[in-house]
């Protein structure tokens, strides 16, 4: 099993709400498969994704990626996990503003020590970014920025790609384009995809759908 989330609970200590954001959540994902996580705004989708990405800590339960449990893992080991095994795409694109498109594309792979120039140039071409490599993020459109973010994440050849509403900031046409590219490239790279979305149309493109409501999986 590539990803296994077992009875994970999470409560924000500084939140005025006393109830847990995630309550006894369990989910599994096989290598090379994809799952869509849907749910209302505030239902805890991003929280779950951040826990899987080892960006935050859970209160109880266990998450393991490719057999490695995140429980009790040091900050350094968690960081290494993000550098190589797991890659992220956010709704806000979150490219590095001071680096060019080209630099952004290769950044993650270089950090993870997995620079494969051929793969990056394939990605650049497939994502239609060839003419934009010298631009800075602020000089390209939102759809283009998100394509760069996808390229950056896949360049590292992660086992698991986590995407948090990757098309949430894009208009409908651009959104479909980006989704199409994402699905194709996932196929090519052989990565598993864990995608958060509130659109059932997008969710239906993935192999499996799960729904989060008030912190519990339905």
């Amino acid at each position: 099993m590539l990803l296994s989330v077992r009875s994970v609970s999470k409560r924000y200590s500084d939140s005025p709400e006393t109830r847990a954001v995630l309550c006894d959540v369990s989910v599994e994902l096989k290598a090379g498969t994809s799952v869509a996580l849907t749910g209302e705004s505030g239902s805890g989708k991003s929280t779950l994704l951040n826990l899987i990405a080892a960006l935050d800590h859970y209160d109880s339960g266990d998450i393991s990626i490719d057999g490695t449990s995140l429980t009790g893992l040091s900050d350094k080991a968690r960081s290494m996990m993000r550098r190589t095994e797991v890659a992220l795409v956010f709704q806000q694109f979150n490219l590095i503003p001071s680096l060019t498109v080209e630099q952004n594309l290769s950044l993650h792979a270089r950090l993870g020590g997995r620079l494969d120039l051929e793969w990056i140039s394939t990605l650049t071409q497939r994502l239609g970014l060839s003419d934009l490599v010298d631009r800075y993020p602020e000089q390209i459109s939102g759809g283009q920025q998100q394509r760069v973010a996808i390229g950056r994440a896949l360049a590292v050849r992660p086992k698991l790609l986590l995407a948090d509403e990757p098309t949430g900031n894009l208009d409908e046409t651009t959104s479909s384009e980006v989704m199409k590219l994402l699905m194709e490239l996932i196929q090519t790279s052989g990565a598993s995809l864990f995608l958060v979305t509130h659109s059932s149309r997008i969710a239906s493109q993935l192999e499996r759908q799960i729904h989060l409501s008030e912190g519990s999986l339905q």
Partner: protein
Amino acid sequence: MKRATFGALISHWQKHPLQLLALVVGLAIATALWSAVQAINSEARASYARASAQLGFSGLDVLIPENGTIPVTSYVNLRRAGWKLAPVIEGRWRLPKGSVRLIGIDPLSHPSASALTDATTFKLVNLTSPLQIFLHPNTKEKLDGIPDLPPITLTDSLPTGVVLTDISIAEQLLTHHGQLSRLIVLQNKSIGLTPLAVLAPNLILQSANGSQTGRLADSFHLNLTAFGFLSFAVGLFIVQGTVGLGIEQRRNLFRTLRAMGLSLNQLVVLLLSELVLVALTAGGIGLILGYLLAGALLPDVSSTLNGIYGESVEGELALRPSWVLSGLGMALFGTALASGHAFASFYKMPILTIPGFQSRAHTAGTGYKMMAITGSGLIVTGGIAMVLFDGLLVGFALLAGLMLGSALLLPLLLSKILTIAEKAASGALSEWVWADMRAQLPGVSLAMMALMLALATNIGVGTMVSSFRLTFLGWMNQRFSSEIYVSVNNDEQASELVNWLDSRGVTSLPIRWAEISSMGIPIRVYGAMDHSRYRKNWPVLQAVETLWDDVFIGSGALINEQLARRLNLWPGDELALSTDWKVTVSGVYSDYGNPHGQVLVSLSNLLHNVPDVPNRQFGLKLPLKEVPALMKELQEDFDSRDILAIDTTDIKARSLAVFDRTFIVTGALNLLTLGVAGFAILTSLLTLWNIRLPQLAPIWALGVTRRQLAWLELLRSLALATLAAVLALPLGLLLAWVLLSIINVEAFGWKLPMFLFPMDWLRLLGLAWIAAIIAAAFPAFKLARIKPSELLEVFAHER
């Protein structure tokens, strides 16, 4: 409405207390440094004016000789022609414990001076024997042990370091027989009298409004003012940064307020009132700090002025209303200057767009170019001014152009260097670090400018002072080539001493001199006997081939550099020491630290022109290890009231102490300026903190730990400080060159060789690193301990 909006505006500072603190502290420090210097200067000026009034010299025109002194006969002739004049003899009276300013006056004709109208003094001068000397109790110590003095009267109404006496006594003590230094013109109406210019064509009429102090003291004050101004400017960098940020961060608020019906002008008025409030508060704090600082520095300044320039500054630091007003004015002016740019951009930029940090980074490029062009223009202008004009002020203009111009060039240079570094970087992380530094540049460039200027000033002034010190030391070793100097009180003792020394086989060289005055400049003329000591050791700068032969034949003279520059006399020129005493300048020697003119002629030449030159000082040549024994013997065999022997190692140590004290003030200002620059970095990093997180969070999400990011933050600050230091080095050396070769010549009359002190540079680099680490430590610490949820907020959708 007004009140509510003002409250809303001000609430920004409650949310960002550090920003407010930076603004207030920056402005307060700037005001403090500036007003401290002003306080010192005005105190000194007041003290000069007081001294001048005490001596009865203020408000009256003075006749000074074109060269040499004024013969008594000229004075008598002018009196006969109906002019009311008061004669004055003035000179430096060198005593074993330092020199004093000896002023001889005619008590009957001298204008009323507070020193003389003082009840007891008046009685003494008029009713009892006039043969007394008057001095301040603090001066008394210098006269201790001087035998055969007229009775001394102590009075508080004289400045310290001044001895006032009857003209006849002064004549004897200074060996100025029949020669007057100047004549005070007692009436300003001259109807019916033959004009002075006709009666005495070789006397110059100096107006009462002329400078009361010497050029040297003036230039010292100018130096201080320049330093104060520089520190003020460095402080303003902080103000500019925080005001700009305060406006930028409130753009949202402004938009809301505008939407609620506030006009642009109303908004500007509100913002201005806020700034005025801040400026007055910070200015007030700055004044208090400045007052304390001035109080702490004043003793050193007065010992400097006293030790080197012969001016005395006395009295407690007084709180003058004019000083308070000008300090507050400066705070307001500085705030206006520093916030002008922010306000201009406020008017220009459409209020409805919120420019992000990123776009600032990229539009900055053209801004850098404009700044660089302006900067180059300033440097070139300064250079041209230097070529076209001369004078001290132009020297300072060149300095200002250089400093400001280089500061403006800095951002472009830094951005280019960072681009190159980014290209050369091998790792992904280091590439990001350089790129990120470049992106951050608009936010930190002001602080970097401040740091570079502070470092350059430190290097420049440090190089000047150390070069000066080294040269001074070398010069002292040459000039004080005798191991012991002995002075006695009269000629019998002198011959007794010479015999005594002869019997012990100790070589003694007589040191004889006369104080004269030429063109109103006091000059000391030495008579030297031919000896290898002169030929080998004298620190000659420029000379004719036959220098020493010319001197000892009696036709030539050596003059010190100050005199050479002041009178523009160089080897081959003729120097008139008095109307009938002329010599040819055969050489010029360096005489650092001495504000007065000196001439060296052969002893026979001196004796021929001033026959009664006393023979009371001798330089003894002997091996260093025999010095203590001989000193002891001298003390045993001679009465201590008759003889004064000085070990030159002692003199050298004392001179060096005076020298070092002179530069305590500049050293202190230097360090303070560096501190201000460090503070500027801290404030800029702190104010950038909020914009910083969105840039760091994505990198963290890609698998760079918070601890790593914190270290990078520290390294980044260190790298910037190093860059600033490296760029400051050439600027500092240029600054040193200007100070040594231009400013010094204009202000002090001597040019100094420049020495390099790489160890000092390393020490400064260390200080810059410390400043950078301290400044970055807090943000880095915060970053290392930040909660993941805070970083995750950056990715939250509801932003």
